[in-house]
């Protein structure tokens, strides 16, 4: 039986190609659609030149709608970046921040999105103040719960409390699956090895992470083994990453409306070695989740020193995995190769 959970892609995944002009917006949308990932998420200012400082051109927005229609896709989320450090030496005042969020609500609505994604650096008060406007525009503002934070972090708890108190259903969460990092990603280890990390120390760190040893102990252990700079960096990466529990999403499910399907590497047999998608999908189904899981490929930055990332192939593999976990009968496949 097919699941109520839907598949999507954040175009962030194709950043290596779009940065270099190797894929157009149409390539991105068509590729996702062919894989059956019909939900499209974007970082507004990555996809639309000009946003927000000099605005997105009407022609570009018209093109967006035309492509979404052409490939039978659904706009999911505009991920916005509130640049509250825009002015050197002072942070934006509260009202300026609220106005900036409203501007992104407008842009999200203009693109036909249901959600706009807020970063965790934004104060809950700003979002609460913008919530009535979001309701008017039919938009929900979702804060991205991202490692090293997690659903039991006091800052996220404070957001949750503020949302409840606001009484608005225009405020919610967008969990990034990277917070469930259950194994040290092989592509990370390999990069640190290329940078010269001693293999036996890299093995030790990988094993210690598997054993859930506290990051400060692992860093000390590596230092005592004589770790060089690359090996210490490999250990220090643990400070910002952790293996939290997917089941902790359950308590927050009524406010979870979109999911970042973060991944660092999909192997040839379509497995993410570091993030337990089987457990994740199980939890989401148990929680009655009916939104999208949007692929978010972030392995590019870990391999670009040695090979040109193939983002499309990586996304394809993750979509194959997701379709299988969701009980779909058809294996996602690409029809149109992207000219690279």
């Amino acid at each position, binding site marked *: 039986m097919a699941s109520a959970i839907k598949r999507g892609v954040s175009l962030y995944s194709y950043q290596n190609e779009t940065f270099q002009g190797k894929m157009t917006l149409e390539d991105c949308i068509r590729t996702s659609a062919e894989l059956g990932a019909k939900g499209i998420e974007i970082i507004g200012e990555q996809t639309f030149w000009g946003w927000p*400082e000099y605005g997105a051109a009407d022609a570009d927005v018209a093109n967006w709608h035309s492509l979404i229609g052409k490939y039978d896709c659904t706009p999911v989320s505009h991920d916005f970046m509130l640049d509250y450090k825009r002015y050197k030496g002072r942070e934006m005042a509260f009202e300026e921040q609220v106005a900036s969020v409203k501007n992104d609500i407008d842009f999200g609505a203009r693109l036909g999105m249901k959600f706009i994604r807020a970063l965790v650096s934004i104060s809950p008060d700003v979002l609460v103040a913008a919530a009535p406007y979001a309701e008017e525009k039919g938009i929900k503002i979702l804060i991205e719960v991202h490692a090293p934070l997690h659903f039991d972090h006091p800052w996220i708890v404070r957001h949750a409390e503020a949302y409840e108190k606001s009484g608005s259903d225009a405020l919610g969460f967008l969990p990034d699956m990277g917070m469930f990092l259950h194994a040290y990603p092989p592509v990370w280890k390999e990069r640190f090895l290329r940078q010269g990390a001693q293999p036996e120390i890299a093995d030790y760190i990988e094993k210690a992470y598997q054993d859930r040893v506290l990051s400060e102990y692992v860093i000390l252990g590596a230092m005592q083994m004589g770790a060089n700079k690359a090996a210490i960096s490999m250990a220090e990466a643990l400070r910002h990453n952790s293996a939290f529990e997917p089941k902790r999403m359950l308590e927050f499910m009524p406010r979870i409306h979109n999911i970042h399907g973060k991944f660092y590497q999909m192997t040839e047999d379509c497995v993410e070695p570091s993030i337990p998608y089987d457990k994740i999908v199980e939890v989401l189904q148990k929680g009655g989740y009916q939104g999208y899981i949007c692929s978010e490929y972030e392995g590019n930055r870990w391999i670009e020193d040695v090979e040109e990332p193939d983002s499309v192939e990586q996304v394809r593999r993750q979509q194959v995995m997701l379709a299988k976990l969701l009980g779909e009968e058809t294996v996602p496949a690409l029809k149109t190769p992207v000219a690279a």
Partner: protein
Amino acid sequence: MMDNKMIVEGSLRNVEGGFAFLGRLPYYRGLGLSMIEDIQITVDGETIAREDVRFTVRGKTYTLDEMETVYDNRWNFGEKALISALKPGGLGAGGHEVTFAVRYRVSYLPFVPTTKDTKELALAA
């Protein structure tokens, strides 16, 4: 990310009063110009003074000091900006080692990153 794609290959050339190349911001998004804190160009070991650096996008040119208060223009994602150095006579023919470093203010980071790219570039005609 994209660190090694900051300097656009084959783009180094002499211009009126100096030399220039095309540069990209090593980031998964763009930034408003007021958030570009510094751009440092080093050629064959010699660092160009801050006041001798110019930044050009879509036909508009700025000094680094000017950029700090530009709120209506951006360095877009993947956009090739023209990075110029005032250097009378420009560069000599042949190959040059160019380092391009950008310091940018990112609202959500509790520090201000600097990213750089170094390439051996041949002076284009």
